């Protein structure tokens, strides 16, 4: 944790920007170092996902073959009618719901409300697991319909490669997030954050800022999905 100086010494806005970066020891005032490091990790992850999405754009814009229509490919039959993008829409709502429960978990964590924080973390993990389950269903459906990284029945062969790479990498992020949510929920239930008990891996003292740091990761996963939903499924 940073040495936090008295608030009166810190200036707001642009003058604060220059004085923070010009100051000794740490530039990021009022930010625990774990949270600053999570932000920097997320910045690097932004570049990774952007590279995937930009290479998808390049492949799609340079192919002479028609790109498969996502609206039809990802549609589901409900009774007689074919609803476009239904599964993806449900996945989007599940992930946004989990983002909301995570934000509330962070809020109740700072209020040191152990039972509410734990409940909301478990709920977030369940919604995340639901998302991964639906993604597994989607992959199974597409693979059975003949989508491969090198071809598919509907159009440009790059469709499969872009789909598996982008959603696969995102799904991996969700899975890792679910694992860490379960770990954090266990810590909260045990009271390890209230007692500042050291963690089993890093030995860092437990504190409720950890819930916010984990929350940043989880919101980022939702944020990436917003871009994937727009560029891959809707475009």
């Amino acid at each position, binding site marked *: 944790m*940073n040495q*936090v100086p008295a*608030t009166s010494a*810190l200036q*707001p*806005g*642009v003058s*604060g*920007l220059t004085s*923070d970066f010009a100051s000794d020891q740490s*530039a*990021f*005032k*009022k*930010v625990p170092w774990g949270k*600053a490091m999570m*932000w920097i990790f*997320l*910045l690097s992850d*932004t*570049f990774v996902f*952007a590279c995937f999405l*930009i*290479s998808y*754009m*390049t*492949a799609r*814009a*340079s*192919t002479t073959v028609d790109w498969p229509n996502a*609206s039809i490919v990802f549609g589901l039959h409900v009774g007689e009618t074919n609803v*476009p*993008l239904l599964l993806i829409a449900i996945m*989007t*709502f599940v992930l*946004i719901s989990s*983002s*909301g429960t*995570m*934000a*509330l978990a*962070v*809020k109740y964590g*700072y*209020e040191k409300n152990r039972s509410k924080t734990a409940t909301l973390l478990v709920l977030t993990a369940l919604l995340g697991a639901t998302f991964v389950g639906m993604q597994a269903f989607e992959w199974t459906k597409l693979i059975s319909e003949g989508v491969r990284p090198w071809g598919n029945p509907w159009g440009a062969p790059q469709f499969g490669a872009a789909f598996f790479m982008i959603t696969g990498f995102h799904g991996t992020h969700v899975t890792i997030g679910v694992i860490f949510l379960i770990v954090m929920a266990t810590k909260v239930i045990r009271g390890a954050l209230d007692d500042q008990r050291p963690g089993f891996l890093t030995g860092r003292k437990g504190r*409720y*800022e950890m819930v*916010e740091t984990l*929350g940043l990761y989880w*919101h*980022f996963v*939702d*944020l990436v999905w*917003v*871009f994937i*939903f*727009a560029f891959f*499924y*809707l*475009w």
Partner: protein
Amino acid sequence: MAHDQAQQQHPLSTYLWIWGLLFVLSVLSYMVDYVGFEGLLRWSLICLFMLLKAGLIIAVFMHMMWERMAIACAILIPPGVLIVFMGLMAIESNYTLIARLRFLLN
């Protein structure tokens, strides 16, 4: 809103409002596909809803609007270069497409 500690504490109503707005924006972006808008209208609406959702998540759920300007600038400005990268690759893919149409499909 001023905060004396390193902690981020905001009223419940703020989170619930943003949560609701994210749902509404998701429904709207889904409707773009459901209604079947095409062309420039479709792309501009998709981008508008996408940027609004991303902005709300970063600003409120990730607490960026309450952070000091130093960390906000350090995190939010670098991804700007990705716009340049995207522009370069758009030009490149356009060239590739023209070359393929000219030399491969005749």
